[in-house]
């Protein structure tokens, strides 16, 4: 059976720049894929690309394929894409403060998805909205429906945004840093809600984040992005127990853990290069402690090194355990 979402060899261009190159990952029903990377690694662009919203920000798919079940999304006509958006694939944005229309009452904003994609009338849509809001543990849902966004806290707003995403009964959720703007306790609650949703309703979830702790806590599989490429992907356990790519190793080393003494936690030297001046060869080589001369010239291909575990690094290619 084909996966819920399968992305292969995806490349995106903005004019002469190419912020995404050779991106591939897949998500199954009932699975949470963590898409991890630093700011500027192309995570959000990946989200916009899957949603078919690249033209809004001035980008274009240059190559590759995005399959949603049996539908090819690259090159899909706008009317068909519009039915998918909100109806089959929904987006949860990262800033709940600005993600709701400040001039429209909460209830009407959540109703929209059901009215648009499920063809419900106003009363039935509102009943569904109340149900979803209770599902999101929003107290006093009927009253909240009559409020305007500025009357709610950030955590409440993010619950509303998730309820909005669920309104059209989608199969796939793409959550772009859904908890970044919230405080830690609220973060945990929101993540808990998302995980429950995925498990109960067998949704697919792409959880975009830079928070490795969140990944360890919530995800089934991880794809690590660096400078618009997936450098390593695999099951969470494997990735944390035995990360192979130097970048993944560095990232996991950045997670604070018990027993750590002052000064033990080290960052990754250097900074993410800008899209305008991408390094040649492996894009991580200027910051890589193990870089070899060949890394400067040749971009590594992604190779499978175990069940469901793939790495794009020259160091890994000849490794004996790569053989099946």
């Amino acid at each position, binding site marked *: 059976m084909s996966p819920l979402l399968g992305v292969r060899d995806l490349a995106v261009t903005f004019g002469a720049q190419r912020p995404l190159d050779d991106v591939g990952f897949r998500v199954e029903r009932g699975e949470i894929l963590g898409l991890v990377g630093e700011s500027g690694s192309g995570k959000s662009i990946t989200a916009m690309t899957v949603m078919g919203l690249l033209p809004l920000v001035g980008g274009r798919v240059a190559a590759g394929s995005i399959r949603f079940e049996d539908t090819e999304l690259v090159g899909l006509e706008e009317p068909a894409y519009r039915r998918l958006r909100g109806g089959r694939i929904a987006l949860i944005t990262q800033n709940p403060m600005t993600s709701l229309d400040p001039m429209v009452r909460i209830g009407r904003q959540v109703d929209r998805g059901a009215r648009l994609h499920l063809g419900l009338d106003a009363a039935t849509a509102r009943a569904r909205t109340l149900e979803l809001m209770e599902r999101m543990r929003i107290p006093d849902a009927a009253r909240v429906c009559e409020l305007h966004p*500025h009357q709610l806290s950030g955590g409440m707003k993010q619950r509303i945004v998730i309820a909005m995403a669920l309104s059209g009964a989608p199969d796939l959720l793409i959550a772009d840093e859904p908890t970044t703007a919230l405080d830690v306790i609220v973060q945990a609650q929101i993540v808990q809600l998302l995980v429950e949703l995925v498990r109960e309703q067998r949704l697919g979830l792409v959880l975009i984040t830079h928070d490795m702790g969140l990944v360890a806590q919530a995800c089934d599989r991880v794809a690590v992005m660096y400078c618009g490429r997936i450098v390593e992907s695999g099951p969470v356990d494997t990735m944390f127990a035995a990360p192979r790519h130097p970048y993944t190793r560095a990232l996991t080393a950045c997670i604070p853990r018990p027993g750590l003494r002052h000064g033990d936690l080290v960052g990754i030297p250097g900074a993410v290069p800008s899209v305008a001046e991408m390094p040649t060869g492996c894009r991580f080589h200027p910051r890589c402690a193990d870089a070899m001369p060949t890394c400067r010239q040749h971009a590594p291909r992604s190779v499978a090194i175990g069940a469901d575990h793939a790495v794009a690094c020259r160091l890994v290619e000849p490794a004996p355990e790569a053989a099946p």
Partner: protein
Amino acid sequence: MTKYAIRRVLALLPVFLVVTGIVFLLIHLVPGDPIDNLVRAGSDPEQRAAIARAYGLDRSLVEQYLTWMGHLAQGDLGTAIVQRRPVADLIAENIGYSLALGGSALAFSAIVGVLAGVVAASFQDRPLDRMLMGAALIGSTVPSFWLGLLMILLFAVELGWVPVSGARHWTSVILPAATVGLAGMALVARVTRIAMVQTARADFVTLLHANGVSRFAIQSRHLLRHALVPVLTLLSLRIGLIVGGSVTVEYVFARPGLGSLLIRAINQRDYPVIQGCLLMLAVAVMLGTLIGDLLQAAMDPRQREEQRS
């Protein structure tokens, strides 16, 4: 909302008092007086003093102000010194023309301006957008007296569609209204366009797209509503401007109106008329601001909240 409205109206009272003081002082501090227009050159000081006494001009400014305010409180604007008629009558005669011109100019700039702005925003950075914005730039920089003359030449003299001047028939308001309205239209178009373009970048609009709402529905139902907030503020601020601000255009088209009345009164130093006219204009500006605030509060829930705290 009602509470908010009442508070806004009450807040205008002190403003009104300050305005009366400024209006009064402003003209009395200007050199010259209405007596110059009443007596022949070379008349003796005795005669001047008699006239001054008759109109109370010999008393102190404070006394004069209090008298004026006293009459004003009873709804009496006083009597014109030079034109020798009640100021209220003079204003009543002229304000209709001003309101007709101002109202149609405002309507013209609002409707055409918003439409042009919306079209420009939907074709952002494409030729149609550049064309409209270029036209708006020209519209807002061309002096209205010159534009008025050009329009008279074309539509009244060459084509003969509308009267050249005066205010006898309703068609005579078309050219002056278009002339006054064009500058406002250009401004409204630019504000509408920029507000729509800016709102289009907001996260909630991305989310609307992500929810499968069509581009047209987003533009017409969501972006336009946000864009109208600054446009309404702009238009309500122009209400005052438009009641008395079209003096040059009234002059070009030989139309009666509050502006012309005011200019004539200023030349004659006819204090009661100047005071009456300026007060009308000030009230128009205040009402405009009030209407703008109320409309904004009605449209944007955040506005109401902020005022409450």
